[in-house]
């Protein structure tokens, strides 16, 4: 370039049109695609050009699936602690466990702005109506995680003051075992909830661990089982295996 010039060199060359789904190989080709998108927004694209643009730049899905995806990845938990599990629950929003990775870091202080309730601790009989009211005030759709042994089953508090499992008075979607569960466990339970919202409840662990037929209802009775009992269990086991094969056929 000549000394004292504007230091700008202009090169003109003809650009080829990209075929659909082709990666742009240079910034210039990307620029062409961007210009075409601008034309589309202005309404200048028509006919085959429009069709090609749509196939290469728009992701189509069903409305239902898109809604579930949005719900699963933008959950607002209620700020609600019951007992010692609440300490573990609080740390899931900390940088160490960081539930913001899954879009649920925004804990709302009002049930009317929340759509997930974490029952973090034992539920006293005096607290049960309060929790039920909070749950009823939450927005639809709403989900509940019973965190720890106490809210799942009463845990160690088998006494007069504690409800033996929160699902006696409200629906519970996920039970996280532990006393208290580590924050990782709660995050894992939350991921399970997300998959449940997405329509994939992850029921295939028996297949993964090669444990088909070990369901409680398909387990042979030990000890003094009669012939009829043994036959009933064998039939149940066959049913279980057949059911699993059916599931495998659906997903595969």
């Amino acid at each position, binding site marked *: 370039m000549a000394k004292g010039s504007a230091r700008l060199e202009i090169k003109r060359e003809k650009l080829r049109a990209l075929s659909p789904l082709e990666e742009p190989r240079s910034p210039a080709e990307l620029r062409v695609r961007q210009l075409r998108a601008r034309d589309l927004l202005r309404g200048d694209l028509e006919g085959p050009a429009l069709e090609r643009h749509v196939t290469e730049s728009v992701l189509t899905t069903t409305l239902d699936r898109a809604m579930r995806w949005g719900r699963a990845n933008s959950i607002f938990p209620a700020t609600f602690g019951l007992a010692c599990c609440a300490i573990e629950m609080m740390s899931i929003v900390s940088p160490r466990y960081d539930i913001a990775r899954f879009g649920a870091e925004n804990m709302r202080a009002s049930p009317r702005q929340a759509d997930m309730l974490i029952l973090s601790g034992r539920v006293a009989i005096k607290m049960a109506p309060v929790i039920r009211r909070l749950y009823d005030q939450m927005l639809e759709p709403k989900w509940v995680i019973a965190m720890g042994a106490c809210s799942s089953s009463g845990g160690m508090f*088998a006494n*007069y003051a504690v409800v*033996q499992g929160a699902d006696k008075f409200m629906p519970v979607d996920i039970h996280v075992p532990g006393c208290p569960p580590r924050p990782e466990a709660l995050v894992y339970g939350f991921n399970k909830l997300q998959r449940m919202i997405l329509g994939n409840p992850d029921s295939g662990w028996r297949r993964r661990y090669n444990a088909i037929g070990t369901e409680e209802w398909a387990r042979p009775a030990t000890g003094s089982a009669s012939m009829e009992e043994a036959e009933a269990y064998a039939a149940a086991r066959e049913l279980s295996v057949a059911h699993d094969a059916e599931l495998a056929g659906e997903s595969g």
Partner: protein
Amino acid sequence: MPDAPGLELIAHDLDETAAGSVLGTYYEHGQACLIVDPERILDLLRWLRDTPGQEYRFLASLHGVDYLPAEPRFGVVYELLNMPRVERLRVRAALADPGGDPSEPGRPRSRGRGDDRLPEIDSCVSLFPTAEFHEREVYDFFGIVFRGHPDLRRILMPEDYVGWPQRRDFPVGGEPVIFTHNEREVPRWYE
């Protein structure tokens, strides 16, 4: 803390003031305890609070005990404190259960369900205002009625709760959980 002779002196003085009100004394682990007649409890507490030389002006705690199957069954325990001398004195009112079965001593009839006659004792709120919540708690858990209490109702359990849950004959509650060691006895929920 009054030592063992000191406790006997207090019991002696009390017996001179109100004869027959002290049923016994008890000194163990450096703690002094007077066992007294529940009908005279208000006079005794007033004497311990106001008599020069005693002056147990602070009620540190008030609680109930169920000694089933011993008789008398209940105890209402007052923990008194003299702050200048830092001396503590325990007063225990031995309270019989009017709902118990008279033909079989020690055998409860009430089963803690609250459908029988309840033991009664005078409230000491007029002497120690702090006793108000303590007496409500004792009423809540043991079903002991404090006569003259300004607002005697449940304090911790729900207001519509039936029964006196800290009585020893109250069922523990909970429900059986199936484990491998008891799966033959517990009903199989999955069947």
